């Protein structure tokens, strides 16, 4: 069980390793607040849809499984959107249409197809939590870098009143560059570990 959980955080981290769920990651990671808010929404949808899909895995016929998964995921996304609108309106305003786009976040459909539909409920929930936390880690790191460079603040609090921000960091171009270099760094680390392992 624990292995399933930690799998999603490191070994199969959805953003840096499997590289799914990139669209919202790059678009929403302009500030730490937005990133964490989005991640919380994703965790909610991921855990609950994994749970329901795992519960129903014996009843859903193979041929209609994708539409069924999509409807289940879309339902939880709509619930998330409605609750967010009602209780955290400023997050809802900043995330905009990316909340609805959670439904096409490849992570969720991917885990449903690959894991939740083939494993029992407790494992599916663990996988959902693990992947969700892995996603949170990834998007938070990117957002932290982009917010510090691009707005000179962390969680909305300015670090310095005179810093002239690097505007490009909070624009999509900056997102691409940030994640490109981060993945490059991770690859260097992986290669180093492989060489050390061989010795």
């Amino acid at each position, binding site marked *: 069980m624990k292995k399933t959980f930690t799998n999603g955080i490191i070994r199969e981290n959805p953003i840096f390793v499997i590289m799914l769920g990139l669209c919202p990651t790059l678009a929403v990671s302009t500030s730490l607040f937005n990133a964490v808010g989005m991640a919380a929404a994703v965790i909610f949808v991921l855990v609950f849809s994994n749970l329901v899909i795992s519960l129903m895995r014996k009843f859903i016929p193979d041929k209609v499984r994708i539409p*069924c998964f999509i409807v289940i995921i879309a339902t939880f996304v709509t619930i998330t959107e409605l609750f967010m609108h*009602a209780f955290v309106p400023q997050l809802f305003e900043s995330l905009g249409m990316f909340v609805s786009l959670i439904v096409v976040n490849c992570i969720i459909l991917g885990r449903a197809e690959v894991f939740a539909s083939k494993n029992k409920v407790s494992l599916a929930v663990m996988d959902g939590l693990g992947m969700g936390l892995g996603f949170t880690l990834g998007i938070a790191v990117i957002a932290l870098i982009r917010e510090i460079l691009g707005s000179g603040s962390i969680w909305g609090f300015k670090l310095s009143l005179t810093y002239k921000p690097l505007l490009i960091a909070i624009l999509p171009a900056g997102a691409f560059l940030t994640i490109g270099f981060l993945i490059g760094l991770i690859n260097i680390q992986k290669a180093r570990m492989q060489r050390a392992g061989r010795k």
Partner: protein
Amino acid sequence: MRLIVVLASVCIAAALLLGVTYSLTSGRIQLQEQQAEKAAVLCALPVAEKISAQITDKPIPYYEGYDASGGVVGYAFTGSGKGYSSTIKIMIGVDEDMTIQGIKILSQQETPGLGDKVDEVKSTGTLWDLLRGKKIPPAGRPWFQEQFAGKNTETVNEITFITGATITSKAVLDIVKSTIEEFRDQLTGREPATG
């Protein structure tokens, strides 16, 4: 056959669940929207003590603002139009002479760091201040919007645009001007009838 039954029942279950969620949240969402609207009206008409309910039987729905003695001090209404990359909605407050009392941008999705500076509030403290326990004074209103106060449809052309966000700035200016002019026509067009 079984395929359709399963898919249909999933859809129906989903629709039911969502219907319930919607009824739970819609009341609160509406309440929030009304509160946000009311706050915006007060931003646009800072001198008003009381606001009427929204008058909706005209093409441009508006609010009337009253002072303590019940006299009309101004009107507030929303205008919207195309910004650079999104529709910008603005609450505009004017007095009887159509002099702008204040504006509040209700929604925009302009370019971060450029166009969205129309909503930018100058920071009054840093993270280090916060961590050191220093009290941070509350932030004021966006400077770009503040400069509209006291101008009319002629003098409003003198406002300072945001560097690098000419289109967004001009869009806000145009929306404010044209909506005030439409409202003025609506108001004066109405008055002869009631005498």
